[in-house]
């Protein structure tokens, strides 16, 4: 049995306050959504609705930041298809439908977690890092130095930052999994968990290394979704506890429950 969801979900037409291109095809979108800013937990997501009749399905995106005082929520997304391209064309002052907060986020009770992310998976980890207020370090992986605008976003959140790039143009050459064992085995290492969001192949590799070091590991899964509320079963997966829904029981799961 899963625990009842204690947070009230809302569906609102939210005013866009900022839309900025951070890198080629990567956008940061902030909206006024005080109800969601007040309750969203790190690792949770929302379903965005482009308010035009030609969009039947919503698009899931993670919460990258919340500003409770201003009642704003920020998402960072890559324009990869019809929905995200339409999202990128929206201007401040226009509205977007926001349904959330949805799902279960990352564990927030660790004392010194290492966050590991790649690609757009770094977006929800921004909120995790902010909530850990300096207690979390981050290991980020990218293809080349161009992608690592992320370093600037993580810098003000405290904690140490480690970088790998596939071509070695910044940080260590290789993947996050290349550097991860060194970080976990360093003399002064005191990590008590590894929290991961990124491509599945990376998360599987990271989970293996974390397990080998006896550390709890949580991973955030991506699946196509319909309702986002656990009703339509578009995002069902096999887990150690039987069938589960990524949108409602996840997107964050203990790695050993989903990577069987």
């Amino acid at each position, binding site marked *: 049995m899963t625990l009842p969801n204690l947070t*009230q*979900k*809302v*569906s609102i037409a939210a005013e866009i306050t900022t839309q900025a291109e951070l890198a080629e095809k990567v956008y940061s979108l902030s909206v006024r959504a005080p109800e969601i800013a007040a309750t969203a937990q790190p690792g949770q997501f929302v379903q965005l*609705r482009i308010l035009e*009749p*030609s*969009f*039947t*399905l*919503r698009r899931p995106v993670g919460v990258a930041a919340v500003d409770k005082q201003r009642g704003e929520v920020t998402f960072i997304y890559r324009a990869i298809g*019809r*929905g995200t391209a339409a999202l990128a064309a929206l201007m401040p002052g226009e509205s977007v*439908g926001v*349904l959330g907060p949805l799902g279960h986020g990352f564990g927030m009770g660790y004392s010194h977690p290492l966050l590991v992310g790649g690609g757009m998976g770094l977006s929800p980890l921004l909120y995790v890092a902010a909530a850990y207020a300096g207690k979390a370090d981050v290991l980020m992986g990218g293809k080349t130095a161009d992608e690592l605008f992320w370093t600037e976003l993580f810098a003000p959140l405290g904690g140490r930052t480690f970088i790998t790039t596939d071509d070695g143009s910044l940080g260590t050459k290789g993947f996050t999994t290349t550097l991860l064992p060194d970080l976990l085995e360093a003399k002064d290492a005191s990590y008590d968990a590894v929290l991961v969001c990124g491509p599945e192949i990376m998360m599987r590799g990271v989970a293996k290394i974390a397990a080998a070091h006896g550390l709890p590991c949580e991973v955030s899964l991506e699946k*196509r*979704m*319909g*309702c*986002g*509320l*656990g*009703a*339509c*079963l*578009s*995002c*069902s997966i*096999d887990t150690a506890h039987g*069938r589960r829904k990524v949108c*409602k029981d996840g997107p964050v799961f203990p790695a050993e429950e989903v990577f069987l």
Partner: protein
Amino acid sequence: MSDERLHMELCGIRMQTPVLTASGTFGFGEEFADFVDLSRLGGVMVKGTTRKPRRGNDGVRITETPMGMLNCIGLENPGVEVFLNETLPRIKKYQMNVIVNISGATVEEYGELAGMLDVDGVAAIELNVSCPNVREGGIVFGTDPKAAAAVVRAAKANTRKPVILKLSPNVTDIVSIAKACEAAGADMLSLINTLMGMEINIETRRPTLGNITGGLSGPCVKPVAVRMVWQVAQAVHIPIIGMGGIHCWQDAVEFFLAGASAVAVGTANFTEPGVTMQICDGLNDYLEKHNIAHIADLIGKVETE
């Protein structure tokens, strides 16, 4: 807002409004409790239930298409026993009409399921003989008048609950199947289920969906659904629950005019989880504005002369 003009009683089921939710799109209702007053709905047609648990299809199960979507969930569900022992007691508190959508592998299994569900807390049984996403059972019963009638008889023989037969649009002559089911004792008909469809990714040359084909739903199917409701309404005397592409109250009005006594909303719940409440409000306004005393006065009132 008072729903007086919308109260409806169909086969002994008292409905606050004639707006229901379609099977497979609304879970067990509870998932939408933050957005919908579940007792205001005419009923919640819960996820397709089978005798044994089913894990459904592998691979991609859902994709957006022009003005709609394709799905191939494949009837994933925990099975009728879990439904009876865990789900039904849990959702009782919402005081909604629970209509259980069932799918059998054989005619006998439909009878067995209908018998098992003849319990307190179940308002009616909906026979899904039209699921395009499972190999055995499903659609074969929905495309042949004799097989569909046999399923209706098996269900009727095993339950005192009203039995609704859900018609498949994937047929050449929906009217003959509707008539056969009426003659076999169906208390109501619901239509339409999804239209079988397919999408191909031109870069990978692979079908988008894991099951290759899937069921098309959403606004794009509405004209087909309205036409079928209209044709069936002229041929049978039992009430019809119309569905297929209803996204707003105007769509719902079309279905009533075509001959539906109630409507069900499916895919639109994904677009906007509270849409059924907006549809109820819109219907109330429409009736008031046009000085129509009751929604029943609209049923079948399309003028074709």
